[in-house]
């Protein structure tokens, strides 16, 4: 049974109290360029410490985004180091998640023939990963990747995947296999009290279902894939929606019918009830999960559950800032930017 780590939960709530408010996002959207946004973050929010030595007049957009992403990881390390809970197996999830993200980025770079992987490698986590991220960035073919991963747990996950005659690999299939592995790992390492376990599983189920829904929606709406093709790319684990229910949805002939069938599900009804735009599935899914996470964090007294949802909320906050920065940088209308911000 999970030991009480109330101090960690209290620390999380203290940090959560400093989160950005809707007014902060409004202020940032009123700025005209990346420097002004960085300046606002430095002078008015808890990111001031992160940006203390940064010259906001000359900061590059990419560097700012990398710093923000790094801040999430540093916060994660801080809260798991507070009562030394990082030694427990469950808390390794962030490292594994990052490793999986990097492997997938590597596969995409291999397919695209790009050598730009190094640019966004999160080198600050390199001392904790089970493989060298810089060495991963050097890999330029799938066989090389498998050889590289031979001594890691990811080899057994990816060894059945083979490249085609052009050396390209089915990225969606790799993503499906790795995400399935990750979710199963989460489920097996989570040691919660009964009430917290239910909430965690419920949150995870939403994540699983939305991965499947969004993937199948993309394949239906943008690629017009058949039901059989879509099925191959689905996660083999399911959440609240059963496999049959998913099949019923993605067997829709077009995007409009897909949305109509989806609207009849529990999630569809929740999206409509909360007033989100159901035709913008990805954004609505993120909003629903965000709302669910906030509700869990308010009520949970469990350290692992609080850590998991808090980091999710923090990542959403960083994504909001990045959306604003990129929107301003590329001259997107403020209405459109505002629609991407989740609060």
């Amino acid at each position: 049974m999970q030991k009480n780590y109330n101090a960690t939960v209290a620390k999380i709530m203290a940090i959560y109290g400093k989160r950005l408010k809707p007014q902060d996002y409004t202020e940032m959207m009123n700025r005209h360029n990346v420097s002004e946004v960085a300046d606002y973050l430095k002078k008015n929010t808890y990111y001031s410490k992160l940006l203390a030595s940064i010259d906001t007049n000359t900061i590059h957009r990419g560097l700012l985004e990398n710093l923000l992403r790094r801040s999430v990881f540093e916060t994660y390390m801080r809260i798991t180091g507070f009562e030394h809970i990082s030694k427990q197996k469950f808390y390794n999830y962030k490292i594994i998640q990052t490793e999986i993200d990097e492997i997938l980025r590597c596969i995409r770079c291999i397919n695209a023939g790009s050598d730009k992987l190094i640019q966004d490698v999160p080198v600050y986590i390199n001392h904790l990963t089970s493989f060298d991220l810089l060495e991963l960035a050097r890999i330029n073919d799938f066989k090389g990747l498998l050889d590289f991963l031979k001594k890691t747990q990811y080899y057994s996950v990816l060894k059945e995947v083979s490249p085609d005659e052009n050396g390209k690999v089915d990225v969606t299939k790799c993503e499906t296999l790795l995400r399935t592995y990750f979710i199963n790992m989460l489920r097996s390492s989570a040691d919660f009290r009964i009430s917290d376990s239910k909430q965690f599983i419920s949150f995870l189920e939403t994540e699983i279902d939305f991965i499947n829904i969004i993937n199948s929606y993309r394949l239906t709406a943008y690629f017009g894939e058949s039901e059989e093709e879509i099925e191959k790319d689905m996660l083999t684990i399911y959440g609240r929606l059963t496999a049959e229910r998913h099949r019923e949805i993605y067997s829709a002939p077009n995007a409009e019918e897909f949305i109509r069938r989806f609207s009849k599900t529990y999630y569809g009804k929740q999206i409509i009830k909360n007033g989100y735009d159901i035709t913008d599935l990805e954004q609505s899914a993120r909003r629903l999960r965000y709302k669910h996470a906030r509700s869990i964090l308010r009520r949970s007294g469990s350290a692992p559950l609080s850590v998991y949802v808090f980091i999710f909320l923090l990542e959403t906050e960083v994504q909001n800032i990045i959306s604003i920065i990129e929107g301003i940088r590329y001259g997107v209308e403020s209405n459109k930017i505002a629609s991407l911000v989740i609060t």
Partner: protein
Amino acid sequence: MSIEKMEFVNISGHTNDLNAVLVKLSDCGCFHIESASKVANKKSGYTAIKEDNPYTPLLKKLYEISARSGIDFKSMDYSDVEKDSLPVLDKYLTDVSNTLDEYKAAEKKAREQLSIHEQAMYQVDHLQGITADFQQIFHCEHIKIRMGRLPADSFAKLPYYDDKPFFFFHFSQEQEYYWGMYLVPVAYLDEVEEIFDNLYFERTHIPDFVHGDAETASSELHRMVEEDKKSIEESVKKLDEFMLLKTEKLCKIFSRLKTQHDNFDLRNKAVIVKNKFHIVGFVPRSDSARFAGMFGNLDSVSVSLQHADMNGKIPPPIKLKNNWFSRPFSMFVEMYGLPSYNSINPTNFVAITYMLLFGIMFGDFGQGLVLAIFGALMGKLKKWQMGPIISRVGISGAIFGLLYGSVFGYEELLDPVYEKLGISFLPLKVMNNVAPILVATIALGVFLIIISILINIVSGIKNRDYENALFSNNGIAGLVFFGSILGGLVGTLLGIKVFSVPYVLLLIVLPLIMMFMREPLACLVRGKKYRMEGGVGDFIASNFFEVFEFLLSYVSNSLSFVRVGGFAISHASMMLVVMALANGMSAAASPVMVVFGNIFVMGIEALLVCIQAMRLEFYELFSRFYSGDGVPFTPVKINYDETIE
């Protein structure tokens, strides 16, 4: 000491009069608006008003100007600009914004120059010792040198480029950056520059006109930095002077636009049925007569009033009515959540119990008085919301201090007074009565829990929530069970045989069964059929664990009050330590120790006791009778501090 009675209002009139009505509603300060579509009859064929607010774009422009210039708009008389059309205002704001952009751009340019020169200066300052001319270094024919700083994360990525033809040397590290330079053969310059661009290398341009060695270059750069700073000051001064000229008119425009914007937004709450608008909401009953008379000059407008809970569709908003004594404690109630309309206003209960608990835990006459004076001053001078609360609990602390005989930690000061008065049982020395105090505080806790349950029962019956009032753990069944267990325990301690078979069966087992079966019993009382969800097994399992939790909560909530005695003892103990330290010091130092010791203990104890008392209120007491799901009464008004999204 209750909840303000409300009247449900229905205003209707011709659509031509809608704007005039909305202005009056904003001005009256007593109208809480609701969406009329919540009560409108679908068969009436009503349409909700969904219009884009035409004032929003201009307001957004104003907020942008405010954000970029740093001026805060405040409300002002705007009769000067009232007649200006929106296009005229738009042009004015655009002109201000464009001029602001120019000034900002000039400032930004100056700052960028300063930043570049400062970086160069910083870099050059780290190169002290280079005696060669910089121009000679930078004009090397076969090798190019680039100086600047590299983010720490990028520095860690340099091993990836081990096979590339460059060397990077760093001179110093500063938080997120490594300052240094890289050398690259001319033939590979483009390739290596691209690598460093991707690594976010910030190049420092040592200006061409900087000559000489490091020392000479450094003093030249120091001079340039001073000039840049003056230039920035000039730009900022010009911007401030410009904004100073414009501030008054901008505030007037803001006041006008915000008023019109907020009034326009209210339109979305109304519905239209055949050229007639309908607006609904609530007014306090005490203001209803004045409110109804406000629309006398609008012929088409009629106002109908009815008791708030008769509308059935919209819960009335809550405005607490508290007396002078308990009003400051409404902050705690609002923190937890407002009561629902027909329930009880718990503010008086909170005021009395909070003061009681605080007084017991803090008991010191002198410290209590100091706290009371401090709270009163803070409330009056700094308008601190906690001020009046602190002053009240300070008085309670002083009263209990009298009972304990404690004055600034001196436990014997009041002994002669009580002797003279002939009161032998006072003062109650805390440190000599540890066990009785702990038992007494548990007894107090039990008493307060019983009061809370009684409040819940009364409230439940008033609201016809029979499950809660009769059969729940905070209803009659719970009260009988809890009281019987307590009665039995007390009787047993006193040597009286209380737990007879009829006693146990009727007063313990029967209430337990009622709690277990509370949902079906409540349906029976209401004359409805109970529908079991999930099967008998589920019902038994979930109710068993819930009843188990109820039983545990009786014990834990009661024992939780032992902390009240604990804190009373800890307060006395801390003062004992202060006095012991003071006694061990010299005659000069001892009073200083007493003073600072008292300040320290007062500060720590006041904070701890406030938190503990609040915890007991919210967790042990409120959870028994209070749901806090009321909607606050918020009369419509123009909020000049609120920004729009």
